[in-house]
Each structure stands twice: as C-alpha cells, then as structure tokens.
C-alpha cells in the first residue's frame, strides 16, 4: 500500500510539467531607477507571456514612473511638492541608479536600446497591459507622496495595500526590485 502510494507520487512528480509549481509571478517594484524598472517590466511581460498570472506592485520610488509624463509637480503640501521637483516623476524622466550624469546616462542608455531594438520602458508598459499584467499602485505611497489617481497613467488596477500584495504573493514567485 505504502509502496504503491510512493510509486504514485514518483509518477506524478515525473509527469508534472516544469512550470506547474509556480503559475503566478509577483514583483514588488520599489525602485524608480531606470535600470531597475526596465528589467521589472521585462520580467513582468515575460511572466505573462509564459501564462503566469502576473502582478506588479509599485511602491515608494517605484510609483513615480507611473505618473503621467505631462504631470510636472505632484503632491498636496510643500514637502510632497518639493520631493517631486527633486525627483521628477514620469517614466520619461526616470534616472539611472548609477552613472546618471544629470540625465546623460539615461539618454545614452535609451539611444543604445533603440539601436539594439530593445523595447523602451514605455513600450513595455503598453505590452504589459496587452498581456494582462496587473499594475497595482500602492495606496500608502500615493497618500505619502500626495499622488492622486488622475496623476497616474491609465490602465492601472485600483490602488491596494501590503495585505493585497502579500496575499497575491503567497503562491507566487516573488521578486523585490
């Protein structure tokens, strides 16, 4: 009886496709740096392309790239406004984590990407929406930075909190970028 159960388990394990244990991908996008948000979007779109239910939670500095590029200053009070002038929101304006050189680094990176036909972060956001990736802004960060729904790009999920993120993450591959 026990032998039969073991044999059954072995057979099942052998027949189980490699992808079976993880059908979900959750990425906590904490950084707003171009060289972090870019691979986040590459992994997110690829996860969805593999049939994984993919969710990206944008929190802290990770939320600024979701601000519409035409919104210059965000926030309700002087501190929030000052933060947004020191670190301009919008995907078009994200900086490199290193070698930023007042924007020369990102400009070169984007030029190289174009030459090598690497999809831009903007193209990847559009692709993520097409593939059904859930893009979730963190409600607490929105409150902290004074961001409102109309400051953010279209096509996002309703803002949510840490509980939603962790419930989603329970049976998922989870990355913190």
């Amino acid at each position, binding site marked *: 009886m026990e032998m039969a159960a073991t044999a059954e388990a072995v057979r099942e394990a052998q027949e189980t496709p490699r992808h079976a244990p993880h059908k979900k991908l959750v990425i906590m996008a904490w950084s707003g740096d171009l060289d972090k948000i870019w691979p986040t979007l590459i992994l997110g779109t690829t996860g969805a*392309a593999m*049939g994984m239910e993919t969710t990206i939670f944008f929190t802290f500095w990770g939320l600024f790239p979701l601000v519409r590029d035409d919104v210059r200053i965000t926030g309700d009070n002087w501190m929030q406004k000052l933060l947004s002038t020191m670190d301009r929101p919008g995907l078009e304006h994200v900086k490199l984590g290193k070698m930023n050189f007042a924007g020369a680094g990102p400009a070169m990176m984007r030029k190289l990407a174009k030459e090598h036909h690497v999809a831009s972060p903007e193209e990847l956001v559009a692709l993520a929406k097409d593939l059904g990736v859930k893009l979730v802004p963190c409600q607490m960060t929105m409150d902290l930075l004074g961001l409102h729904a109309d400051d953010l790009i279209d096509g996002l999920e309703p803002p949510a909190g840490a509980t939603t993120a962790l419930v989603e993450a329970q049976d998922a591959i989870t990355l913190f970028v």
Partner: protein
Amino acid sequence: MSTTIAETLDMKGFACPLPITKAALAMHRIAPGELLEVFATDPGSVPDFDAWCSATGNELVDRSEDEGVFRFVIRKR
C-alpha cells in the same frame, strides 16, 4: 492537426523580451492546434523559445537557422 502556418511573426532585429511576448500575444489570435511561425535574430531566442514552450505546453515543431535568422514553428496547445 494543421500543417499550414496560421500566422507569421517577424521579430528580426528585436531583442528580449519582444520575440517571446509578441509570440504569446499572437497565440491569443490563433486556435489550439494551429501553427505560429516566428522569425528572430536574437540568439537568446533559441533557449528562450525552448523554455517558453516547455513552460506553456506549446510544441516547438521546427527550428532552423539561415544566415543568422532563426525560424521557429510552434503548435498552439
């Protein structure tokens, strides 16, 4: 089982993740059992299409290379 190509995707010149992600979108447009043909020049697409097929259950029916252009034929699961 169909042996004619239902859709062809030209991903020549495009880097990761576009060949795979665009192939995944194309899969939504064709029916199970139908064939998708993808042309790509990214050498990384060779292991990536293997991995993608094993993860999704789609079948890599044929793969060939002609002067740096890879051709993948994938049957939708």
